[in-house]
């Protein structure tokens, strides 16, 4: 009887470990495949912001940004802060962003459009574009 009991315990442990490995593998594989297929957030994107002078405005549309706008768009706030941080070099900044952030910035500030408007904040004008890698 004793060997039978040991065998039963061994089979039970084997079944437990087998199911754990099987279920974990299936779940992780499905998750990885869904992530791969949907791309979750698409290709890596960067917001390119550069300071421009008033002479570059010409007939461009200008959006006047408020503090509230920057609070609601942390990526844009980060880029503008970085572009204006060093007055001695070319004033531009590249900030990574997600697909959702790009969509939102496009709908609110037109950053990923053919004739992207110029953004103005605190008296400084910024041109924007989106880089997709």
């Amino acid at each position, binding site marked *: 009887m004793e060997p039978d009991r040991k065998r039963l315990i061994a089979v039970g442990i084997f*079944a437990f470990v087998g*199911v754990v490995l099987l*279920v974990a593998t299936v779940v992780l594989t499905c998750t990885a495949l869904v992530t791969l297929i949907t791309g979750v957030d698409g290709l890596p994107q960067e917001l390119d912001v550069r300071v421009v002078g008033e002479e570059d405005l010409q007939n461009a549309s200008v959006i006047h940004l408020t503090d509230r706008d920057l609070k609601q768009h*942390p990526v844009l706030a980060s880029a503008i802060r970085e572009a204006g941080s060093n007055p001695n070099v070319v004033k531009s900044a590249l900030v990574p962003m997600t697909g959702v952030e790009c969509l*939102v910035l496009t*709908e609110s500030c*037109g950053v990923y459009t053919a004739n992207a*408007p110029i953004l103005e904040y605190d008296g400084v004008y910024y041109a924007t574009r989106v880089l997709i890698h």
Partner: protein
Amino acid sequence: MEEGKKPGNRFRTAGFVVACGLIGIVAVVLGFMLADALLIYAMEGSGGQPMLYVMERTDVQPEWGMVVPLTEKDFADHPALDAVIRGEERNPSGWEWGMSDRRFIGGTNVSYAESRALQDTYGPDRETWVYPHLEYGGAYYLVVTTWP
């Protein structure tokens, strides 16, 4: 049938194996739930700042399906959604940028747990990946969240 192996023993063995398998499934589910909770806990302390964004669309036809009327319960369950759609975080942009049939309505900071909850409730269908349109006051909205 081998000597000494009764049908009752086989059933008992099979039942034991099935029971161990079920315990294994429960263990995996509990493990994933624990890992998820720990992940959220770690993310909340990471300094990242998830955002809730709401977009408004104009060309939505209710007969397309996937239109969900927003109720007071939705706003009570998700104060951030309330603040963006009809509260102090409402900050609509113009219609002329991007697609002309939609515009940005507003956005606000949310926690990782809230970002997940909003995505689970108002995010895209898991099979079709189509976002539901939320209807409130005759306007249609899309809810998106970030997970930095």
